[in-house]
């Protein structure tokens, strides 16, 4: 059975570069971070810390560019949360998908994220990443807290950072799985590589 599809250019060059660089950096930060957490031994503690800090600065630089891009292109609007068709999308992933129902949301250049994605990615951008960056920087500059007048506790900072890391693990698992829910298992991945999403025609 073949379905007629139309091609939509959803993800621009910078967006794709940003996505994959961020993915790589976060995966490496996770690998080195959990070694620092003493969950396993891979690089050795010292190397893991060195890598983790370098990767952290690379990610922060990337985030600065991404913020600039989102603001100047107006793409930030893609992440404005909406409840419109939220329950329909949720219902689709909970029930409809097993019955080969059609996805209730159609991506378009103007609105490329379904309401569930909007909520999830917004949470990622305004909650998890800021928590990780803030606690990470606090952690990194622990020695300067006193001179900078920062009153915080290292144990709580570390625990928050760890909690954020665990949240990212769960996000990563579900996020990767969700890429297989396009009209073919690799459709979404292809779109994030080429920028072109194939969407089933009505």
């Amino acid at each position, binding site marked *: 059975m073949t379905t007629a599809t139309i091609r939509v*250019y959803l993800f*621009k*060059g*910078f967006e794709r*570069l940003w996505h994959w*660089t961020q993915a790589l950096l976060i995966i490496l930060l996770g690998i080195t971070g959990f070694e*620092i*957490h*003493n969950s396993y031994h891979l690089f*050795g*503690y*010292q190397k893991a*810390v*060195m890598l983790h*800090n*370098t990767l952290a*600065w*690379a990610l922060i*630089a*990337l985030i600065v*560019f991404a913020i600039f891009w989102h603001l100047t292109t107006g793409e930030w609007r893609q992440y404005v949360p909406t409840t419109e068709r939220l329950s329909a999308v949720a219902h689709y*992933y909970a029930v409809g*998908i*097993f*019955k*080969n129902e059609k996805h209730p949301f159609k991506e378009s250049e103007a609105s490329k994220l379904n309401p569930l994605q909007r909520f999830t990615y917004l949470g990622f951008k305004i909650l998890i990443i800021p928590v990780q960056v803030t606690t990470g920087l606090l952690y990194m500059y*622990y*020695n300067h807290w006193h001179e900078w007048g920062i009153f915080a*506790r*290292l*144990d709580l900072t*570390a*625990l928050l950072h*760890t*909690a954020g*890391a*665990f*949240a990212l*693990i*769960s996000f990563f*698992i*579900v996020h990767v*799985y969700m890429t*297989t*829910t396009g009209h073919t298992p690799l459709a979404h991945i292809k779109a994030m590589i080429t*920028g072109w999403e194939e969407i089933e025609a009505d």
Partner: protein
Amino acid sequence: MPQRKTLLKQLLIIPVLLVVVVGLLMAKQVQVSRAADASPVALVAAEDNPAQQGDDEVSHSTADHTKFEVLQQPFETVQDVTNACLSCHTEAADQVMHTIHWTWEKHVPDTDQTLGKKDIINNFCISIQSNEPRCTSCHAGYGWKDKTFDFTVQQNVDCLVCHDTTGTYKKFPTAAGLPVYEPTEFNGKMFNPPDLNEVAQNVGHSSRNNCGACHFYGGGGDGVKHGDLDSSLKVPDKSLDVHMSPDGANFQCSDCHTANSHEIAGSRLRMLSQSDTHYDLPNDDHNRATCESCHGITPHSNPKINDHTDKVACQTCHIPEYARGGVPTKMEWYWKDAGQFNDDGSIKSTVDEQGFPNYNTLKGSFVDEVNVKPEYYWFNGVIRYTLATDKIDDTKPVEINPIDGSYDDPNARIYPFKVHRGNQPYDPVNKTLVIPHLFGKDDTAYWKNFDWGKSIQAGMDYAGLPYSGQYDFVDTEMYWPITHMVAPKEDALACDSCHTDKTQSRVGSLEGFYMPARDHNNILDLLGWLAAAGSLLGVVVHSSLRIFGSKKGR
């Protein structure tokens, strides 16, 4: 194709981004190397080091002591030599008399305690009181044989023990600080009278040998007491001590333990956990017996390691083990076991499988060790002693010199220690440590009569302290800060010596702070991994249902 063009344009961002990231990292590196360049250690190395002249062919001194007539006179006694020294160095004896090398006593304002060899109790040979002639063989003076010693007589100051450069001047072990005037044997070793003219005409800066003659043999034998000071430091390999090795900086003790008016920097009774001025060079006030005095507080090229220096003493990482020179140090000493003889009634003296002494009738049983990993504690430099007048709690090991400090104390750092454990006599009624009279040829000395009751009564009477007449043995612990035997930097502890599982970490037992890799919150870890497992399970179930659904749909 216009779209391809825009794509190309957007791809240009990649090199731009890379340049920025690399630039940021390089800026960081430059900052680091600048910090490293600023180290004044280079200044020290470049300085001509006068204290090393003992090893040089040419003396840089402006005085040739062989030319002084006063040193050519025939000397009857060692006191005559002192008088000759004082005829030029008029203030020297007075200076020495104000130092702990003479008084063996020091008031420490932090604890308002009067400490020093004269007053403290330790868990080696316990106390000098009533045992003076043996102990005071290391006094920088002559004739301190009992408490009647007059501390004001200048001619009894011993200049030679610190300033002899011939290596022939030796104080006899049991002669209250005097050398011998006739050849005399001690424990199978012959002590010959020194040629006082030869010695007096060859005085100079104190070398490792001068200081080591006493400080390497504390506790009654080579390496016994400190663990980081023993005869292996006379000519150490660089791997044993980078500063003192002739292949390293070839430092003498006095290169760090500098002196003003014979007052020598770096007393253990009140230590500086870290130098408050950090760099003491080049504005040297001759009071620079800390690592930071020369190395500063940020000596590493890696800033992450410098981030540790506020809370971790240099010694903690740079002295991975002590007693590394092959000379064992005493780790445990049980006085309770003393007084057992061989079957034939002779003094029993045995060694363990490594050849280290483990029993002596006079002293009890021991455990000696080499290459020992230190124990680590928060330490702000203040040590409070349990004196013979202090009440003890005999239900647990008595800390003879509990050290002060905690994570929250800004003056405290994690510091390495040798902890010497054992047991020793105490008064179970008065709840005090006791002073036994050990050395002597009288009928109460323990080493002659092996009767603790008489020995303790005599010692306590001598010290003027109350004794109930009953004695028992109590477990004791004593802390010895480790600060010598600084290893080459490649041998310093790695991060994961501490940043690892609590059971493996060298600082696993220290509390009050969070340390990455060592500490976790078990609940958070459990919830985090459960969430990850839950997500994975959800994915598996969901994908199975999809596969099942699509088959059914067909």
